């Protein structure tokens, strides 16, 4: 006999069934290929990142076997170089960044009170690119084709002269493709945090982790582009002989160091801040209180993020920079200790005011405190130039960075996985194995890396495969190796314990930790749709304020209850106040992200095997699929404002001037702008610092090029505006479209004109830079032309109207960017010749 449900429970069940139908992926392996839901994508991301962590850990064990004894014959020096390069590369690029991105994709929608990320297909694309790019790097290593120049690949060591073969290319192309994935995730995170939240969730009410991830995602958008540019320059130098880093032809290897560390130092905080966000989330719950100094912590996170962009040269203290230059960066390096300390004291204060309970996540957080503070203090030591000179490139540096990255990142992330395990699996961790793992891991970590500090202070160089017995480092290294193996056993026990708990632990009740944030308002494990209705909140800890809220959400008390329009919908709010503003219509399951990731990865990886034609064809495939992707969004008719529930009528995201795609484009252009700025910085750096400048000759602009560029730029800025105006007034947009087309062609012609009489790109870095600047203009002209053609087709097929003019406004953004950066690029190339 079927048990009878009360009317409220029955209503909740009806909503659940409707939502599951709309939000689920097909069952089986096909479902994994087409799913775009954040729960699936996040889990896939998390699983793959963990697999890479295991691979990176195994490589670390090989390093420690080699160093355990003096004059070790365990592996040849060449193999050792590949192993330590791959250990660093795997841990930094394939584990650390993707792991927190995975947790963000999994958890942010729940914390923010929304149903999914802003761009579900982009998230799926990012994860597949990451899987293909990362796997290619690992396969290359297994085939003995791994890079061996260290994880930061300094030229000239990584140039073709000293790194022949494809090892360095594997690194450059594989890692760049993974950075594309990181930028995709960052765009998604920023738009989600700024616009996709529960009603009433103002900035002041946002969960602390959302603040941290907003800051981190903006950092990714501004820190990764210099690194991408550096990789492009190095790959172009290796493949085509354009001498960006070759001194004799006007290049400078220090340019690589600048571009790399412009990324590399913020990268440390990009990794640390999500962990700090997790601590800020978990610690108050474990201490049964609210976080102390919420506003101070937010201010500290923002300050740390911005200040971290002023530290990159502290990795270059030994490169012969003038004292004054060193002093700027030494001062900035000591400065970042202040916001970090603000966070640490806020956490200590939170513990002090609360009543902490020693659940397993709390143990790992205490492990973080004990370790990270030491890593932070050795960081301040390294900010002092004379000390840095003493320990530069020794094991002291290796020990310091592991204290920061394992203590400051891995330990809090383990705490986070234990804490959120009920949300992911529906089961509550309960085995003692987790505690044993903790007590193995943390002491083993300190044994390993305290010993390594000592070895470094005694002068042991990093990246050297062996050492002599008479140097007196045997006991230290042997202890470090013993510690490292115990550490590996500890991490293996953690993974085993998590696996056992995920499968065998008892089912968890809702909100098992009695947390106050929204992600715990859902049934466990979290359903694919997240919330039965989008809640209205009135504080930072809505579940503390209203313990019945989860049941009310399940019954559909809130916005967009159920799925009456049989499509995936969630709420878009005003950024500052959290007031409901739009109804977002999200895409459903799609194979497009998977296919686009295949062709994108192919375009990156085919050149490794000399298959340049395949790469070119793959690029055409990327453009074709991207156009088809965009085509599948939008509507042919005006729907008008829709009922969002609670008596509110809101426009859909298809019928507003700033649709999510507009925000996404804006952020992508931010990254693109930083990339372009880095290119100008590189040009200025070579011009002022590199030897063998000026070049044999400058290029003279003449009249035709500047006239084409100026006229084209103006038309390119004016045309899209006229198009938007015409669409908004239901007038034919032909003039605007034509003007845009003429503008972009004129700008491209100006770049072509410049190259017609341009210098040989292989003879001097100036010539190479001019070609790269022209390449920037031409690439963006092609993108703008494709977008223009797309918009014209959409207008012709009825996809635009005065309400639906968002696509034209997106074209306007891209056209403005193309015009402004195009004019700047051409001016930069012509200016020296004009004034010479």
């Amino acid at each position, binding site marked *: 006999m079927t048990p009878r449900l009360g009317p409220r429970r029955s209503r909740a069940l009806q909503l659940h069934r409707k939502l599951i139908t709309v939000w689920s992926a097909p069952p089986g392996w096909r479902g994994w290929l087409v799913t775009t839901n954040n729960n699936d994508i996040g889990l896939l991301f998390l699983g793959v990142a963990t697999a890479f962590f295991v691979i990176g850990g195994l490589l670390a064990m090989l390093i420690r076997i080699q160093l355990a004894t003096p004059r070790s014959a365990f592996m040849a020096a060449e193999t050792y170089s590949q192993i330590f390069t791959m250990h660093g590369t795997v841990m930094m690029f394939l584990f650390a960044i993707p792991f927190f991105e995975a947790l963000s994709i999994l958890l942010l929608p729940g914390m923010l009170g929304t149903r999914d990320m802003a761009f579900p297909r982009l998230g799926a694309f990012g994860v597949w690119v990451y899987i293909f790019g990362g796997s290619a790097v690992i396969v290359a290593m297994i085939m003995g084709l791994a890079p061996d120049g260290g994880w930061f690949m300094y030229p000239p060591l990584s140039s073709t002269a000293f790194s022949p073969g494809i090892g360095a290319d594997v690194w450059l192309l594989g890692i760049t493709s993974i950075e594309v994935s990181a930028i995709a995730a960052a765009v998604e995170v920023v738009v989600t945090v700024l616009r996709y939240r529960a009603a009433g969730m*103002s*900035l*002041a009410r946002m969960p602390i982790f959302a603040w941290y991830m907003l800051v981190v995602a903006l950092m990714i958008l501004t820190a990764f582009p210099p690194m991408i540019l550096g990789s492009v320059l190095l790959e172009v130098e290796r493949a085509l002989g354009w001498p960006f880093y070759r001194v004799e032809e006007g290049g400078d290897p220090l340019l690589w160091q600048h571009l790399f560390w412009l990324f590399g130092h913020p990268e440390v905080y990009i990794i640390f801040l999500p962990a700090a966000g997790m601590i800020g989330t978990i610690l108050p719950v474990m201490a049964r209180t609210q976080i102390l100094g919420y*506003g*101070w912590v*937010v*201010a500290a996170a*923002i*300050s740390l993020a*911005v*200040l971290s*962009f*002023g530290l990159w*040269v502290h990795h270059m203290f030994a490169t012969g920079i*003038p*004292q*004054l*230059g060193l*002093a*700027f960066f030494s*001062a*900035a390096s000591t*400065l970042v200790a202040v*916001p970090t300390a603000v966070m640490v004291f806020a956490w200590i204060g939170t513990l002090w005011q609360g009543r902490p309970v020693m659940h397993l996540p709390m143990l790992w957080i205490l492990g973080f405190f004990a370790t990270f503070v030491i890593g932070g203090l050795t960081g301040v030591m390294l900010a002092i130039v004379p000390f840095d000179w003493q320990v530069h490139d020794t094991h002291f540096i290796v020990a310091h960075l592991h204290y920061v990255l394992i203590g400051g990142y891995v330990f809090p992330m383990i705490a986070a996985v234990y804490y959120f395990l009920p949300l992911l699996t529906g089961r509550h961790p309960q085995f003692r194995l987790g505690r044993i793992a903790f007590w193995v891991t943390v002491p083993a970590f300190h044994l390993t890396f305290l010993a390594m500090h000592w070895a470094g202070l005694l002068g042991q160089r990093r990246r050297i495969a062996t050492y002599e017995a008479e140097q007196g480092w045997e006991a230290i290294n042997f202890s470090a190796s013993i510690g490292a193996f115990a550490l590996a056993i500890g991490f293996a026990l953690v993974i085993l314990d998590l696996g056992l708990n995920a499968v065998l632990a008892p089912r968890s009740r809702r909100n098992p930790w009695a947390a106050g944030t929204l992600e715990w308002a859902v049934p466990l494990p979290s359903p694919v749709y997240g919330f039965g209705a989008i809640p209205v909140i009135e504080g930072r800890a809505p579940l503390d304020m209203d313990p019945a809220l989860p049941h009310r959400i399940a019954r559909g008390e809130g916005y967009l209850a159920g799925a009456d329009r049989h499509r995936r919908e969630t709420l878009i709010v005003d950024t*500052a*106040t959290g007031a409901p503003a739009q109804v977002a219509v999200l895409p459903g399951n799609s194979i497009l992200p998977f296919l686009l990731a295949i062709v994108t990865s192919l375009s990156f990886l085919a050149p490794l095997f000399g298959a340049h034609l395949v790469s070119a064809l793959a690029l055409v495939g990327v453009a074709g699929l991207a156009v088809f992707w965009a085509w599948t969004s939008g509507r042919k008719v005006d729907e008008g404002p829709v009922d969002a529930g609670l008596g509110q009528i809101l426009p859909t995201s298809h019928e507003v001037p700033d649709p999510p795609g507009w925000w996404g484009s804006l952020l992508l252009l931010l990254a693109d702008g930083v990339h372009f700025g880095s290119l100008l910085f590189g040009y*200025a*750096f070579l011009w*002022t*610092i590199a030897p063998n400048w000026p070049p044999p000759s400058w290029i003279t602009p003449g009249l035709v090029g500047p006239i084409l560029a100026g006229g084209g730029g103006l038309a390119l800025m004016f045309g899209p505006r006229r198009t938007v105006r015409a669409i908004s007034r239901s007038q034919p947009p032909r003039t605007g479209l034509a003007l845009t087309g003429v503008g972009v062609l004129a700008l491209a012609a100006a770049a072509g004109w410049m190259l017609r009489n341009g210098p040989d790109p292989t003879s001097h870095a100036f010539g190479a830079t001019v070609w790269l600047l022209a390449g920037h203009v031409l690439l963006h002209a092609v993108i703008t032309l494709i977008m223009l053609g797309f918009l014209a087709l959409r207008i012709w097929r009825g996809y635009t109207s005065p309400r639906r003019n968002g696509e034209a406004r997106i074209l306007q953004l891209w056209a403005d960017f193309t015009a402004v950066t195009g004019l700047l690029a051409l001016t930069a190339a012509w200016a020296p010749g004009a004034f010479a």
Partner: protein
Amino acid sequence: MMGALAVSLPLLLWMIGFSGIYGLHGATCATGGTPLSVGLPAVVAVTAALQIGLLAWILLGAPRQLPTFQRRLSRTLAFVASAATLWTGVPVFVLPLCA
């Protein structure tokens, strides 16, 4: 818009000033020092003056209509940026230019 400006401008200004000082320092030393050497203290002084002006605007001026949280956040960040500008600018006045 006002909120976004008040929160982001102070540290953005520090970043621009810091980059300007570093870039000008490189250019100064690359060109032999003297013609641009007065520029460095001037850039630090101008950045510091702008920071203090911005701080005054945030403390006394336009962002007063912002919600409390954003107002406090922008004030804190303006203090941080001012301190950072002074702290990272001090070496210009005490160290030789291109030694």
